[in-house]
């Protein structure tokens, strides 16, 4: 059960996938309230489920979670602040819960029992980048092919799609708060893409924010990986 050991490891050894970029994410979000907010929400508990609807496996997983399983594309059950379940495919779902809820894994495995299906701890697979502020949708529209108009993408919708060339899960967790879940190996790329994409919105901010933009934002060149790692050797956020 190596996967469980991993997410249950000592907190002080955990390293957020985007730790080297936390300072820059914070800088573009200043001063609050800003038209743009970027932050990482690392270490959430994520559990992959597979179960065919209308089977015993599906019913007992839904029951154990207590929030049901979504039954169509875009649908999310539960609560973004607590346990939520995203639809990945007709028989595939992703549980997203606060950090250190990995006790859910054995619970769900037990619920599945010997029925056909799957319960896998995927907590290390994706991180969450939170994009908020009044310009958030404009930023996403630059790189997401899905229609993000509230008519088709109301609060509480989540889909698998692409941001630029990277595959992501995109979740509108609140009216002006979008959660972007890239795989960890694409996380830095996705964050750099966003840092670049938010620039024009930062600079165009009506309240004179642009004057206060720190150097890091004015600099168009993405920080090269080794340098930025030195900047922030240790995660600013731990669970």
């Amino acid at each position, binding site marked *: 059960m190596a996967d469980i050991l991993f997410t249950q490891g000592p907190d002080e050894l955990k390293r957020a996938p985007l730790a080297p970029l936390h300072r820059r994410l914070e800088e573009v979000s200043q001063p609050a309230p800003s038209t743009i907010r970027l932050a990482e929400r690392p270490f959430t508990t994520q559990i992959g489920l597979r179960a065919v609807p209308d089977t015993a496996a599906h019913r007992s997983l839904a029951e154990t979670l207590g929030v049901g399983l979504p039954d169509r594309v875009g649908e999310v059950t539960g609560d973004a602040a607590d346990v939520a379940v995203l639809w990945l495919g007709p028989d595939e779902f992703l549980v997203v819960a606060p950090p250190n809820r990995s006790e859910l894994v054995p619970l769900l495995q037990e619920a599945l029992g010997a029925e056909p299906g799957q319960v896998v701890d995927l907590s290390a697979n994706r991180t969450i980048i939170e994009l908020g502020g009044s310009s958030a949708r404009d930023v996403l529209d630059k790189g997401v092919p899905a229609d993000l108009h509230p008519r088709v993408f109301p609060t509480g919708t989540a889909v*698998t799609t692409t941001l630029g060339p990277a595959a992501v899960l995109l979740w509108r967790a609140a009216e002006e708060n979008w959660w972007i879940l890239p795989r960890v190996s694409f996380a830095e790329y996705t964050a750099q893409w966003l840092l670049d994409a938010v620039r024009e919105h930062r600079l165009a901010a009506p309240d004179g924010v642009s004057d206060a933009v720190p150097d890091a934002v004015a600099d168009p060149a993405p920080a090269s990986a080794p340098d930025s790692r030195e900047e922030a050797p240790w995660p600013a956020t731990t669970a």
Partner: protein
Amino acid sequence: MMLIPCPHCGPRNETEFAYGGQAHVSHPEDPHALDDAAWARYLFYRENPKGLFAERWVHSAGCRRWFNAVRNTVTYEVQSVEPIGPRPPGGRPAESTTSEGGHA
């Protein structure tokens, strides 16, 4: 850029999909029973119609499910889609229903 209606996710941009070629080509039940010509047909020969074509797509950057589509290879319009399955999708043109060497 085609807008492809995934049977599970609805219309999405072509960039989210990968192509799988002709649909309904089954693996021969007994490959040893085939002679070289029949094996070549199974491996290398596919329908190449100008017009309606029953083909496979996978929604690789979405639900990751394979499905069948009938698409017009001239206008690129997708006429119908359905989840993967043994049955040729509706509206499939008669002349392209023969899958090569596949059926035992």
